[in-house]
């Protein structure tokens, strides 16, 4: 497994958690569509990437799932954020902002005096 995937999976977890926070309980397909839309269709998610990630988050206790019925009457598994997931989202958001801020300082053209 290359480094690239690790980074990608790390950010995917954050995207999933954020999506669930803003949309409330949602099935896998809905999460995938939302992430794709938010990214301006720059990202594409297939089963092979999304579902193992959902399973992992569930194993870690950040999300929980129940079977339910979708808006157009299909049986689907709905995922929702747990309390631990909410905390994790806050933490990861903070970490991410910090990381991007540091990186931005490196990449910004002007050196502060």
């Amino acid at each position, binding site marked *: 497994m290359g480094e690239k995937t690790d980074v990608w999976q790390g950010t995917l977890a954050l995207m999933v958690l954020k999506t669930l926070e803003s949309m409330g309980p949602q*099935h*896998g*397909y*809905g999460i*995938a*569509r939302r992430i794709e839309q938010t990214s301006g269709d720059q990202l*594409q998610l*297939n*089963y*092979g*990437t999304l*579902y*193992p990630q959902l*399973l*992992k988050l569930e*194993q*870690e*206790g950040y999300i929980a799932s129940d079977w339910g019925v*979708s808006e*157009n009457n*299909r*049986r*689907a*598994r709905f995922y929702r954020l747990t309390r631990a997931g909410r905390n994790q989202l806050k933490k990861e958001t903070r970490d991410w902002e910090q990381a991007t801020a540091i990186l931005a300082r490196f990449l910004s053209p002007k050196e502060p005096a």
Partner: protein
Amino acid sequence: MRSLRALFLKISGMFSRRRRDWEMEHEFQAHLQMQIDDNIRSGMNAEEARREALLKTGGLEAARENYREQGGLPFLETLSQDVRYGARMLRKNPGFTFVAVLTLALGIGANTAIFSVVNAVLLAKLPVAEPDRLVALWETESSPGNFPFAAPDYLDWQAQNQTLESSVLYRGTRPINGSHNGESQSVMAMATQATYFSVLGVKAQIGRTFLPGEDQAANRHVAVLSYGFWLKSFAGRQDALNQTLELDNEKYSVIGVLPEWFRFPLRAEVFIPLDMNEKALPPRGTHGYLAMARLKKGVSSQQAQADLATIAARLEKQFPNSNNKVSAVVVPLAEQLVGNNRRKLLLLLAAVGAVLLLACANVANLLLAKATGRQKEMSLRAVLGASRRRVVRQLLTESVMLSLSGGLIGLAAGVWLVKMMEASQQLPIPRHNAIQIDQTVLLFTFLLSVVVGVVFGLAPAFQAAKAELGEELKSTAQTVVNASRFTRLLRDGLVVAELSVSLVLLVVAGLLLHSFVRMNRTDLGVDPQNVMTGLLILPDAKYPTQEARGRFCDRLLQDVHGLPGVQSAALSTEIPPEGGWNGSIEVPSDKDPAHASQLVEYNYVSPGYFKTMGIPLKRGAIFTPADMERAAAINLKLVELYKQNPALTSVPPELTVSTIINSTMARMYWPNQEAVGKTFKGAGLSLQVVGIVGDVKQFGARSLPTPQAYFPLPLNQDSSSFGAILTVKSTGSPESVVAGVRGRLRDIDGSLAFFDPRTMDTVIAQNIQDASLETWMFGSLALLALVLASVGLYSVLAYLVSQRTREIGIRMALGAQPGHVLKLIMKHALALTTLGIVLGVLATLLATRLMEGMLFGVTQHDPLTFFGVVGVLTAVALVACYVPARRAARVDPLVALRYE
């Protein structure tokens, strides 16, 4: 915490796989449907919508695989699959499995046993508090080496040092006459300063250990018992405390019992306080005490040695006569206890390691033969999609299963061997830690088994991984697949290695055997036939004076002499080959500086000693009864003189006593002169040589003859706790004498024990017991190695023949004679054997360097042993080759051609 929770869910996921798969399928299905629904809503027709959706959601099979991996532990799942498959394969070949497991069990069992000894002796620490701070203290003298303590020196060191937290002076463990509940027995007792247990940091299990001040005359009648002695003599009763134990006719009150694990020193049964009053201790210059100390925190043994050497230098200035060249030596206690056992144990560990390597090589050979037959199976698996890594893993799982089974049986054998060793009193190694299978040994055996499995499994696994995909499947006509060149080389290489390793072991064992035979044949200078020995100790309470001791000795010798079948009897303070006292002498005419540090062995004997031991008189005469009486009288006067002046240096010439010396001493101090009649000074006496006797190897077969002086026994009878060894030569069996001696002893004094009766033959055998044990151990390992190597050679050749049956058949059909075929196979075998022996000899020349000091009378390159071993190995190898070669020569061409 989160990852732990995930791991737990993954493990439980392994057991709910079916349900998880069902949910996954439904979820994926729903996802696809929703995508299709969306596509239709955006205007596609049903067909188009489905195709787009499938494209977008990606490969279903890969997704399933990823999902399952996340859901469970794929590594474990594959492992359990491999284990199940492996077990099936091993069950299918019971013969192979049996041989392989047994071979490995042998190797692993031997390693477990030897490692448990190494663990107890070299690795495990002394089971006391902070053992790293414990050190043994020694003094030096004018002669090289470490010497026991002079008690007054110790007292000064104890008072003036800056580096020791605490220290203790004690005497070597020795037998004394004990009696409890009216029963007399010999007791191994250790007399010590009261600090012994506090230095070691050991508390009593029942009662207490010594209090400060109990090592003074008034308080010293207290005893601490070892756990074993408590069980033996007090039946392990709690009320043993405050009971009375009589030791050498003095009453001691039991104050405590030590824990079961405590065994330092190993043989001590009873600990009693030493009288530490300076007046009760012998003067400076008499070196007879041992000492131990606990270093202050952060102090190294070198620092302590420097500190104590400063004190010793001061004492040397203050007492130039007694303390000439007396300095300090500090040795970490662990090092002291291991002594020269380290190298021997490591050599033994190397030898069992080599045997295990041989076992591995044999099993690897078997596996290689089997793997060649399994190539088709491996190819099939590869065609069906198994990756190379997966195939290697499968094969390694099988071999580790084999080695773990071998390890389990080996562990059982190891437990048995360890029990035997622990029970054996004769194992010549320090035994302050119990030899046992503890956690470390268990871990060692487990890791060894796994490593062994991987080592011998790598070769066949590697070979299988090289198999060309599909290549083997095509050759369906051929039932026996020819081994690749690589495999053949590997198998030949393994056999060559086996032969050379077993050659090394055989030479090591051969050298030990040869040296043992030499030792056994060495003339000690005595005639041990029909001689019985035993120790007598006269307690001071009942025999307080030289006269009382003298009377006892005379009466005993007279009575024993009167026993039926007794030819002669004697008392002496030493017997060969168990060493003894020594000291330096002063010969007026001798100016050789090389003799300045020469020590002369002292032995105080009754006149019958030389006849009883069969030591020949070379010149002059043996002591007469008159010599003995005169010596007794002179000694009384001398004791008086020394009492008046402890620093007395010259003895009046009229107090000169007769002495007998050995040939070596006569040659050394009076070369080309008549030594009889010459005088010299030694042991605080003025001495005149009256006779010269033959040399005796006082320290056993391995020692060189040393100068030796025999003094009349009464000269030693002023010493407290006088002890002497009774030797009796009889016409009949020496054992029959013991009952007679005990009977006479009872008549004289019922409270005295006849300690440790042994025949002289036993005494001599015990002296070389460590050598006999080493010979036995290395010998059996070498034999095992020989068997393993010849089995390896045999199996390689037998397999070669079975592979070449068809070829041989064709050759014979074309007119080759059986002789040619025999030659063909033997040529291969001889090449392997020769190469193995050449490499083995080279390795042996390196390995035997480690044996320095273990050999007697043979060099490390003893040609007889080398040629003998090469001969034996060649002969065994030829027999192992001949059987398959003959089978090849008898191949019936018709049968061989139909063999396919």
